[in-house]
């Protein structure tokens, strides 16, 4: 395990969003974080990165990271692909990548995974399509050799063909670096994830293998509120 949360709580504007959650992220492959809308998945990732005020214990590679500043955590190996991409719309694709490049950036890998970025280096990121923006957001992080990636709903709002492209890229990436993934698309989860952590009402409601979870229709329905 590379990341471990113990009894992590987050309060936002007086609301107790996360009420003492504990789970581990495996040192390889993809761990998926699931739960209904608004349950606190994004907040969990933000708490890990120090972007949301959290109490409790957070351990990354055996070291406590609670209270550390965000840019230091990222420099020490945590990569973040936020929900809604958050590319810098007024900057070009090249500038977005240049900004994100830390030590020894690997442009070849990024352009191999997403050739479209190479063709559009001088275009502003705001004028890219949603799928291209997602690739840029992923590419920004893949430039660097991180030790763990936190990826928040990378397929949200994308056309089916682009969803597949992004899933393929994530699958390749996860062979080099472990990923904590928030994902609502269960077909993508089924294809990628080894472990699953399900949040409900501010707590961890279930942990186990993703295959077991998705293989059990009634369990899936009661935890995620979706049938299939």
């Amino acid at each position: 395990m590379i990341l471990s949360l113990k009894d992590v709580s987050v309060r936002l504007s007086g609301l107790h969003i996360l009420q003492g959650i504990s789970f581990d992220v495996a040192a390889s492959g993809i761990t998926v974080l699931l739960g209904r809308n608004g349950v606190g998945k994004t907040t969990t990732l933000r708490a890990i990165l120090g972007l949301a005020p959290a109490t409790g214990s957070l351990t990354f590679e055996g070291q406590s990271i609670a209270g550390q500043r965000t840019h230091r955590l990222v420099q020490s190996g945590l990569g973040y692909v936020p929900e809604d991409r958050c590319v810098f719309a007024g900057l070009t694709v090249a500038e977005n990548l240049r900004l994100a490049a830390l030590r020894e950036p690997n442009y070849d890998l990024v352009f191999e995974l997403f050739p479209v970025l190479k063709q559009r280096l001088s275009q502003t990121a705001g004028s890219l399509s949603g799928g291209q923006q997602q690739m840029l957001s992923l590419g920004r992080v893949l430039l660097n050799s991180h030790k763990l990636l936190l990826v928040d709903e990378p397929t949200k709002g994308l056309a089916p063909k682009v969803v597949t492209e992004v899933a393929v890229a994530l699958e390749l990436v996860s062979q080099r670096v472990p990923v904590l993934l928030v994902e609502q698309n269960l077909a993508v989860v089924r294809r990628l994830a080894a472990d699953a952590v399900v949040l409900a009402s501010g707590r961890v409601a279930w942990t186990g293998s993703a295959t077991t979870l998705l293989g059990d229709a009634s369990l899936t329905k009661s935890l995620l509120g979706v049938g299939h």
Partner: protein
Amino acid sequence: MSTIVLLAITGLGLAALYFLVASGLSLVFGLADVLNFAHGLFLSIGAYGTWWAYPHVGFVAAVAFGVVVGALAAVLVELVLIRPLYKRTIEQVLVTVGLSLAGVALLQATFGADARPFPRPQWTQHVLSIGGALVPVDRILLIVAALGVLGALLGFLRWTRYGLIVRAGVENREMVTALGIDVRKAFTLVFAIGGAAAALAGALGGVYLGSISPTTGASLLIFAFIVVVIGGMGSVIGSAVAAVAVGLLQQFVNYYSTGMGDICVVALLAVVLLVRPGGLTRRTA
């Protein structure tokens, strides 16, 4: 015709002064969300620094001294007063308003409350004949300095790593930190740049106005804030365009109907806010 040319160039000189103050204010607000009411103090420090150094070292070195002192003051203010209060807007406003009042009091205690004649080297008092009008060189000097600062700022924003960080930070500061970048270093740098530009405005504005008093900075700051809002928070080009609009409007209206200039500037502000609430532009560079 010659009156119009003279009014236009004088208005542009005023615009240059506004731009030098507003550009730093705008970048600081755009990047760090800090409304710095003490920004006028940097102008006064630059002016008094130049005034103090002039008898010892000559004009150019005195201006350089004023600019350096203004930049250092800005860095000090950022590190000591603003940094502990990031994201606490109300406290920041209180602290910077307090600092600007305290700064005026300190300048009064040190240099006296009355306006002091500002050193004007001979060559700044020459007049050039432009389009039939006799234009004092001090205005041209301000305009050239402002254009130089505009060019340098745009170059900084477009071609340097810190400029890239500033442009990205104006869009989404949190995301910049989430890419592993210490955005606070960029805050300090932007404060230093803003302080230097304001101090330059103080030095050259002193030459243009002929005197300085402890309250010069605070009164110019009001128009600089208007320029920032009209131009769009965080936009250097917006500040430049808005400064020209405000400077020319003020100069022309005041010439043809004394005292109405300031009212027209406020009216312009109201119109821009109604039509484009975000200001003329939202882009940094």
